[in-house]
């Protein structure tokens, strides 16, 4: 008997291993011309796992105090063996994960996988996306360099614009009135404890729901899909799809390694709270579309502050986004109704893409 079989039987005798893993073994993935989009969720998960692993490694040396944070990151990248690799992979993977998360979300939207019964999968997914942005925002401050310091200052300033609770929110985020070592400590706590905890729970629910409901077939290929013989139209998840998924994961690893070695993530200068802000402070690219929008809103709209309008608008947009599946009836009747969500999706994608590019080009 092979080693695997011995372990499997041992587990099965005690935990009913075969029964537990049965759904996984019988899981199927629909095969059609749009199947490639199914990889994105797995890649995002893989990159998240990379983040957790490299994050834990970084935790071994990182020190979350204003006096030592920058120096500890410099120590990691220069003194620790392969520290440069771990750190650069962590930074690059964060960006790549945001990209694949957005891609995964939009592919789900356009392939209409959010339809009944998968509404909550979408909701948990949207929340995971917001969490990911929170991870990005909190993590970005941790090296305590000039860019991060001022980006955080601007970002938390915007949070302070929320009506009624804005001031409290700002003080809560910053750990005080200004961005200081207290902010760093707080962001560190969010980044390594609070957000991972919430993310684990949400991710667990998200994956369970995916397991429960199976992979959805997009309406665009539904007709042809059901015309094809039942025998050939689905692929077993384990091991066939998983092996293909592993190809994607290995490619992602290769890309990350290449990025880390050829274009290592810089550190910049240590933050000096008393120095003036350098010109052209911009947040990370996944915040750029919001940042650019805020810059374009006039300072006063009727009697309301421009920034407040912007914050409220994005808040509303976020809520709308999270509740997208509920905008569509299960069996949409009219052509118009059918296209509503896709239309919103196209608009959102175009807006985000163009505002991001605009944000990059603007000074």
């Amino acid at each position, binding site marked *: 008997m092979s080693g695997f079989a011995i372990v499997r039987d041992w587990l099965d005798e005690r935990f009913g291993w075969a029964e537990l893993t049965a759904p996984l073994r019988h899981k199927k993935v629909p095969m059609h011309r749009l199947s490639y989009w199914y990889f994105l969720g797995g890649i995002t998960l893989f990159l998240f796992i990379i983040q957790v692993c490299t994050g834990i*490694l970084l935790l071994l040396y990182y020190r979350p105090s204003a*006096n030592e944070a920058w*120096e*500890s990151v410099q120590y990691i990248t220069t003194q620790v063996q*392969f520290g440069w690799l771990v750190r650069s992979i962590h930074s690059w993977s964060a960006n790549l994960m945001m990209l694949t998360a957005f891609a995964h979300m939009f592919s789900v939207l356009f392939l209409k996988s959010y339809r009944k019964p998968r509404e909550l999968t979408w909701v948990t997914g949207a929340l995971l996306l917001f969490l990911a942005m929170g991870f990005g925002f909190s993590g970005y401050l941790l090296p305590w360099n000039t860019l991060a310091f001022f980006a955080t200052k601007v970002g938390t300033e915007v949070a302070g614009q929320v009506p009624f609770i804005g001031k409290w929110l700002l003080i809560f985020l910053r750990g005080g009135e200004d961005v200081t070592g207290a902010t760093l400590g707080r962001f560190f706590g969010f980044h390594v404890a609070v957000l991972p905890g919430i993310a684990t729970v949400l991710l667990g629910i998200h994956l369970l729901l995916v397991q429960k409901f199976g992979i959805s077939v997009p309406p665009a290929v539904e007709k042809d899909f059901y015309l094809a013989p039942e025998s*050939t139209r689905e692929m077993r998840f384990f091991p066939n799809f998983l092996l293909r998924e592993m190809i994607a994961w290995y490619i992602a*690893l290769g890309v990350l390694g290449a990025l880390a070695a050829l274009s290592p993530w810089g550190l910049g200068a240590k933050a000096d709270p008393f120095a003036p802000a350098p010109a052209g402070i911009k947040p990370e690219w996944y915040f750029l579309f919001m940042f650019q929008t805020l810059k374009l809103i006039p300072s006063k709209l009727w009697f309301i502050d421009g920034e407040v309008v912007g914050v409220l608008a994005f808040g509303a947009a976020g809520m709308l986004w999270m509740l997208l599946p509920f905008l569509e009836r299960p069996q949409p009747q009219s052509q118009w109704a059918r296209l509503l969500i896709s239309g919103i999706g196209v608009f959102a994608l175009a807006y985000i893409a163009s505002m991001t590019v605009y944000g990059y080009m603007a000074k």
Partner: protein
Amino acid sequence: MQMFEATGVPGHQRAEGAPENRGRRRFVQVLLGGGLLASAASFIYPVLRYIIPPPATDMGGDTVVAARVGDLKPNTGKIFRFGSRPGLLILGADGEYHALSATCTHLSCTVQYRGDLHQIWCACHNGLYDLAGRNVSGPPPRPLQLFDVHVRGEEIVVARKREA
């Protein structure tokens, strides 16, 4: 193992036991096993090296141990490294320690302490600073940046004047 549930598979079918099949399968298994091992090694090796702490444990930072008690005689100075810049530690004639940036504010030469003048002197263009860093004579346009000094046991610790 089968990809599809049904038994009938369209297309060309090969006999399982044919020799070229076995050889081919072995080749793929070796490739896969070897690739798995090699790629895993190329990931594990850096991680193992990473978790072993490096010899230099001082991370630099806003504080540095500039010297030990007894290194300096009264009315002498010593250059020490502070981050990537030189610093000057002086033990005054009165027993007080002073620490300042050693980069002259004129043209960035490294200054030194002159015991005979009780002042800090820049050899490049004869600039002079007092022990509080003030530029008192010669071309330097600005004072030298001061650092905090305190003695911690046997060590003389110099820290930048910054907020926590």
